[in-house]
C-alpha cells in the first residue's frame, strides 16, 4: 500500500478533484449559476434604474457605477482565485486545478476590460476625457496586462502540464505584485496630483445605490462562475480526449 492512494481514500472531497468526476458535476452546476446570475442582475438593474434616485452632481451618468464597480471588483477577485487554483495545482499536482486557473483567466480579462470600458464611458461625461490617469483605472489597465501575460504564456507552451505550472508561477508572482502595483500607482497619482483629476470616491452612496451595486456584484460573481465552469468543461474535453471516460461519454453528451 504505497502512501499515494491512502490519501485519496481518506479525504473524500478530493473525489471531485479528478477531471472525470468533476465534468458531469460542472454540467449540472452551470444552469444553476446561470439562472442565479440572471435573476440577480435583473434585480440589481431594477434597483439601479428604478429605485435609486438621480445623483445630485452627476445626474443619470452615475448609473454606470452599477456595472463599473462590480466588474472592477470581479477583475481583482478572479485574479486572486485564479492564483489560488494555480498555486493549488502547483502544490497538489492536481490537473484539474490547473485547468480551473486557465478557465478563469479569460473571464477575468473580460471583467477587467468591462471595468476599463465603463470607466472610460463614465469619465467622458463627468470629467470630459475618455481616459483619466486615476490610480484605480491605471491599476486596472496593468491588471489587464497581467491577464494577457498569463494567457499568452499558457498559449505559447504546448505541453499542458508545463503550461499549468509555468502559469502558476506567473500568477503567484502577479498576485504578490498586485497590492504593490496598486499602492505605487496610488502614490504616483497623488505625486502628480495637479496633472490629473482623481475619480472621487463613489458619490455619496444612498442606501439604494449601494444595494443595487452589491446585488449586481453578486450577479457578476454568479455569471463568472458559470462562464468559468463552461470553459473548464471545454478544457477538460480538450485535454482528456485521449482517456477512455471521454469515449464512454461521447454517446451521452447532448
Amino acid at each position: 500500500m504505497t502512501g499515494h492512494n491512502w490519501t485519496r481514500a481518506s479525504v473524500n472531497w478530493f473525489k471531485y478533484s479528478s477531471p472525470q468526476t468533476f465534468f458531469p458535476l460542472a454540467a449540472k452546476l452551470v444552469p444553476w449559476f446561470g439562472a442565479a446570475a440572471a435573476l440577480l442582475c435583473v434585480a440589481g438593474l431594477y434597483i439601479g434604474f428604478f429605485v435609486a434616485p438621480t445623483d445630485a452632481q452627476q445626474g443619470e451618468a452615475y448609473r454606470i457605477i452599477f456595472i463599473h464597480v462590480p466588474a472592477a471588483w470581479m477583475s481583482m477577485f478572479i485574479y486572486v482565485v485564479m492564483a489560488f487554483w494555480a498555486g493549488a495545482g502547483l502544490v497538489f499536482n492536481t490537473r484539474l486545478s490547473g485547468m480551473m486557473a486557465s478557465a478563469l483567466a479569460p473571464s477575468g480579462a473580460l471583467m477587467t476590460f468591462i471595468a476599463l470600458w465603463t470607466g472610460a464611458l463614465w469619465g467622458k461625461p463627468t470629467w470630459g476625457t475618455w481616459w483619466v490617469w486615476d490610480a484605480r483605472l491605471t491599476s486596472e489597465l496593468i491588471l489587464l496586462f497581467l491577464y494577457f501575460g498569463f494567457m499568452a504564456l499558457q498559449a505559447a507552451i504546448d505541453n499542458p502540464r508545463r503550461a499549468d505550472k509555468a502559469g502558476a508561477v506567473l500568477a503567484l508572482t502577479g498576485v504578490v505584485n498586485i497590492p504593490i502595483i496598486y499602492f505605487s500607482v496610488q502614490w504616483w497619482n497623488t505625486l502628480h496630483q495637479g496633472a490629473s483629476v482623481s475619480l472621487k470616491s463613489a458619490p455619496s452612496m444612498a442606501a439604494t445605490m449601494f444595494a443595487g451595486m452589491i446585488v449586481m456584484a453578486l450577479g457578476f460573481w454568479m455569471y463568472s462562475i458559470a462562464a468559468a465552469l463552461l470553459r473548464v468543461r471545454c478544457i477538460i474535453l480538450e485535454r482528456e480526449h485521449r482517456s477512455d471516460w471521454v469515449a464512454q461519454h461521447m454517446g451521452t453528451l447532448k
Partner: protein
Amino acid sequence: MNWASWNDFFAMGGYALYVWGSYGVTLGLMITEIVLLILRKRSILEHLGRIRGSTRGTR
C-alpha cells in the same frame, strides 16, 4: 419610479450614449463569451466524434 415615460428612460437624462454604451457593450461581451464557449464545446465534440468514429475500428 424615476422616469415619467419610456423614452424619458431611454434618454437617460441626456447621457444615453454613455450609459447605454457601457451597458450595451457589457451585455454584448457577456453574450459573445457564452456563445463562443458553447460553439467551442460543440466543435470539440464534433472533432472527437470524427476521431472516435475513425479510430473505433483500430482501438
